[in-house]
């Protein structure tokens, strides 16, 4: 779809972070922490890794991407717009009535956006969907690769583990799962709400190949995906260590920023920490013109 250099991917990730902050300042509702933490992964996916065509989102040769944790939508919406699936000017409609940027990703047939395959929001469903899609593609001997991104808190949902078993049982290897391992969920740290560790061992015990990587390090993430796609005979999961709120000092690694937007003052401070990029903002606020 795109073939950015690592430097460009980093700059795009910063632009995505600026977009997320501005979208949330406008919507006054939505999730800050998780989306900020994922900007490096989304930049890498849509500007380097994924095969696709923004002008023909249903292109039959595309790689499939599923965002299982639908509340992370702001980072996806910004990335899809930046990748060319819809105009960046639409980013100011997040969570607004009659808009396509629904609070959680909607299917394109109703209120959703080009580039979204299926609804998500109720947690834990993306893994099963990704496995079904991968099995269907394999049946037709097609080379498309399937990616699914799950939050770490989301792994509390049992359905994910059912899907993990199904993937391993059927030796699905055209599927790569990504776990956003930021150790934060709404209430508290993940290990306080429901202990997930030893997480990699659990995935291994379920029959998966496991790669641990730094999800905020683009070079490392690109290398991990390359390695994952070469593994045959079993599915691979990338346990991608990220920091919730990455890029904004006062949000970083703090679960309290899971589900809230910045107020104007906090938003201004956040934007002052994220230098403008060559890609340009989707909106210039009045106070920025002064």
């Amino acid at each position, binding site marked *: 779809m795109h073939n950015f250099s690592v430097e460009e991917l980093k700059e795009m990730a910063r632009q995505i972070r600026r977009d997320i902050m501005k979208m949330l300042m406008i919507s006054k509702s939505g999730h800050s922490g998780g989306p900020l933490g994922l900007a490096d992964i989304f930049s890498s996916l849509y500007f380097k890794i994924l095969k696709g065509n923004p002008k023909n989102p249903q292109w039959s040769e595309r790689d*499939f991407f599923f965002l299982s944790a639908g509340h992370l939508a702001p980072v996806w919406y910004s990335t899809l717009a930046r990748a060319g699936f819809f105009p960046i000017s639409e980013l100011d409609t997040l969570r607004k009535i009659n808009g396509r940027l629904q609070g959680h990703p*909607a*299917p394109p*047939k*109703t209120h959703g956006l080009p580039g979204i*395959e*299926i*609804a*998500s*929001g*109720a947690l834990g*469903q*993306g*893994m*099963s*969907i*990704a*496995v*079904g*899609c*991968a*099995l*269907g*593609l394999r*049946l*037709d001997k*097609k080379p498309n690769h399937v990616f699914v991104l799950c939050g770490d808190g989301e792994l509390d949902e*049992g*359905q994910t583990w*059912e*899907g993990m*078993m*199904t993937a391993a*049982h*059927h030796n699905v290897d055209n599927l790569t799962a990504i776990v956003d391992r930021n150790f934060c969920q709404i209430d508290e740290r993940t290990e306080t709400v429901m202990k997930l560790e030893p997480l990699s061992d659990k995935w291994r015990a379920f029959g998966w190949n496991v790669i641990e990587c730094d999800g905020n390090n683009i070079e490392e993430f690109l290398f991990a995906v390359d390695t994952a796609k070469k593994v045959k005979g079993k599915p691979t999961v990338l346990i991608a260590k990220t920091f919730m709120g990455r890029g904004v000092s006062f949000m970083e690694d703090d679960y309290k920023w899971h589900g809230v937007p910045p107020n104007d003052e906090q938003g201004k401070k956040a934007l002052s920490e994220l230098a403008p990029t060559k890609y340009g903002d989707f909106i210039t606020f009045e106070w920025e013109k002064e």
Partner: protein
Amino acid sequence: MTKLQSKELKSTRLGFGEALVELGKENPNIVVLGGDVTGSVRTDLFKKAFPERFFSVGVAEQDMMGTAAGFCLAGKIPFASAYGEFATGRPFDQIRQSIAYSEMPVKICASHCGITVGPDGATHQSLEDLATMRVLPHMYVMTTCDYYQTFRAVKECVNIPSPFYIRFFRDNTPVFTDDSIPFQIGKAQTLIEGSDVTIIAAGLQVWEAILAEEILSAEKISVRVINMHTIKPLDKEAIIKAAKETGAIVTAEDHQIHCGLGSAVAEVLAMNHPTPQEFVAVNDTFGESGIGEQLMKKYGIDKDAIVSAVKRVLKRKK
């Protein structure tokens, strides 16, 4: 109209299983998901004929619904089946988000529905599935009356590009439909003409309604019998016509009294042509173990219950 007769006893679930095999021959995109009850729901026939297109997901109905939705995205036509309660109640959220809201044309096929599943008892008697499936936007909902109609419905459902739910039953029951009766999803069948009252039945209660009509016609009561195999989209015209022409309605189903066929019919009547209606259904209670026939009698959904309901509604008829 020729008199409807039971030609043989065969299960509706067998009609489903045999139709799947036929579909498998005709269409390479048909895939079937198994949840460890393949012998019971009769997907074992497809599994044997097309092993490469059969996928076991284990006893995991929530995963099965998501996996089925994923198959749709890869261009497949997936059939997901289990016992009624576990095909609808257990994975309701998955059906709501990944299938109905997302408009994935998964075919959800539920066997062992209703109280007539019998000895397994209340946990396995799906009496709420019509309610939970028909409340979902985009969802088609069917309940077929015999082996052959189930076969026809399953053959035809692949032409519907929507989420689709069909319920059927475990027991061997009378086969009384054939090609002489026109069949179309979404179109009610008038099986017996009549002018005093209309019984609108679905599933196994269609045969009970036919037996009730025999009793009532001997008492000079002219009964119309409609088979409402499609609960959604509902054939409103047939309901309004019956209300106008006969002035009294009895609905009959193997389901809770709330939110099933009876409620669907009442909604149409209330909005279009208010008419006295009596409900033959399980009256807001869970079931118990027993033989299907015994349970139908005890819980008031057999032919005798239909006869009583007809007499009650005729007293209310203006």
